[in-house]
């Protein structure tokens, strides 16, 4: 009886792992296509293959792309840091110090998840341009992106911290640690992987955001807005080259993470053996 159940269980497990692999194939096929196309001579009709590295040479010659990359990085980092700080403080506030307003605070933090990016983009454009008289600028773009980023960061940190044992902090305080020292020496070492995840997600969302950034920036170029603008004349192969380089870097970081996890040097919050 048990062996039949076990066999069915392992079949289900196999089926699920196949679905997971197929999902990765689906998600990464276009990424591989981008890398492939960045080396091909004709980007509109890339098959059959013929290779060149022209796109990479042009990428480094044209200052538009480095400006766009810089602006995207500024928006990504600014929004990522702001989102992670606001969200982490919010989660600790909500979990550690219960009050009757807790539900309201929770709803406020999660509300941006349920407002479409397009709506955040156009409403902040309308507000800034018509009521405040502000032209498009990087600060508006960082703030508008951080709205969404804060909500995602809040969700991620909350999901990890609901299981956190605050008695550890109480113990530290009993032995005379100040709240700040307690946070740095007790709380942070335990929860940093979820903060890292929250920062990474809010960074990625803002770095490559089209609909929020586009409406808040006016003529300032970012990577997605350059891509959007160049679509009219056909996508520049330089954009494919830049995306290929970005992905190369991301894969290298993931490979490093895999090695660290495999050897157990850094466990990224995993508590098992």
């Amino acid at each position: 009886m048990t062996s039949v159940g076990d066999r069915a269980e392992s079949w289900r497990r196999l089926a699920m792992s196949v679905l997971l692999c197929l999902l990765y194939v689906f998600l990464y096929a276009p990424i591989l296509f981008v890398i492939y196309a960045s080396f091909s001579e004709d980007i509109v009709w890339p098959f059959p293959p013929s290779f060149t590295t022209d796109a990479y040479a042009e990428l480094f010659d044209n200052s538009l792309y480095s400006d766009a990359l810089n602006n995207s990085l500024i928006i990504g980092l600014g929004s990522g840091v702001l989102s992670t700080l606001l969200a982490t403080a919010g989660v600790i506030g909500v979990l550690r110090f219960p009050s009757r307003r807790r539900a309201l605070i929770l709803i406020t933090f999660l509300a941006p998840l349920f407002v479409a990016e397009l709506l955040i983009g156009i409403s902040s454009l309308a507000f800034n341009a018509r009521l405040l008289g502000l032209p498009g600028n990087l600060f508006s773009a960082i703030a508008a992106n951080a709205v969404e980023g804060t909500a995602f960061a809040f969700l991620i940190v909350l999901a990890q911290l609901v299981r956190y044992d605050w008695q550890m902090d109480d113990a530290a305080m009993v032995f005379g640690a100040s709240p700040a020292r307690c946070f740095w020496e007790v709380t942070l070492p335990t929860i940093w992987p979820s903060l890292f995840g929250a920062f990474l997600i809010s960074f990625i969302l803002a770095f490559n955001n089209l609909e929020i950034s586009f409406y808040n920036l006016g003529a300032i170029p970012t990577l997605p807005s350059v891509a959007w603008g160049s679509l009219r004349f056909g996508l520049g192969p330089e954009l494919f080259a830049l995306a290929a380089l970005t992905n190369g870097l991301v894969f290298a970081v993931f490979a490093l993470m895999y090695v660290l996890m495999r050897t157990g040097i850094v466990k990224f919050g995993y508590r098992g053996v």
Partner: protein
Amino acid sequence: MLLLAGPGVLFILVTLLLPLLAIFMFSFWRTASYELYPDWNLDNYHVLFTEAAYRTFLLRSALSAVVTSLLCLLYAWPVAYFIARHGGRYRLLLVLLLAAPFFTGVILRIAALQGIFGPGGLINMALGIFGMPPIAALMYTPLAATIGHVYLFVPFMVTAIYLSLVNFNFDLLETAKINGAGPWRAFVEVTWPLNWIGTAIGLALVFIPCLASAVTPRFLGGPSATSFGMSLGQQFGETGTWALGSAMGVVLFAFSLLVLAVMGFTVNLKRSGFTGMGAR
């Protein structure tokens, strides 16, 4: 409490709520030659509710959002379950691998999907080599746009369900088994209801951006795929009719709220599984 959560709450009120209130106000104004004039009227809503085109755009976007959400739901559950239950020490890496495609911008990924499905794309080129006709259903059709939507949004669904499952106590399934429940019954009566909030959040995270989607239908959907989001974007760009665009934004927001409210009624906090939140 206020010191910690206050800044975030204030930030969201200023940068999200105020702009939304602004477009609500503008939706009752009038635009003439790219300028907004504050003469209060209901003309924008009258146009939206009487002109058949806008109704078609909204229904088309809503249908696409429903189909995409259901497809993502079906696919995401087993995947998220596998990562949460069997991912072991690699769980975080497996989840981050779902997020990594976001490092490549939406437009490039859509262009790449076009490069795979399109007339000169990988699939049709390969079919051509074997002397087969190209698959017309994949080129500039609602099906292609739906595949594009699933591609863009399924990682959100998996992540939401995963975040719920990592807080789920899998020992409960052992208890169910000991008490004689088969795997299917244990899933329906224990796993699914206890993870419904996470699943509902995932559904909303797919449904809402899909309802407002503008870029994907524009590049994958073909000539008869104008979505509500595309039309909304045009009001703030090419045509410069900000007041009408604001009214469309209000309608979009109201529609999203309606869907959220319907889903909210299905949530039973006492059976939510977020036991940590109810304590103390």
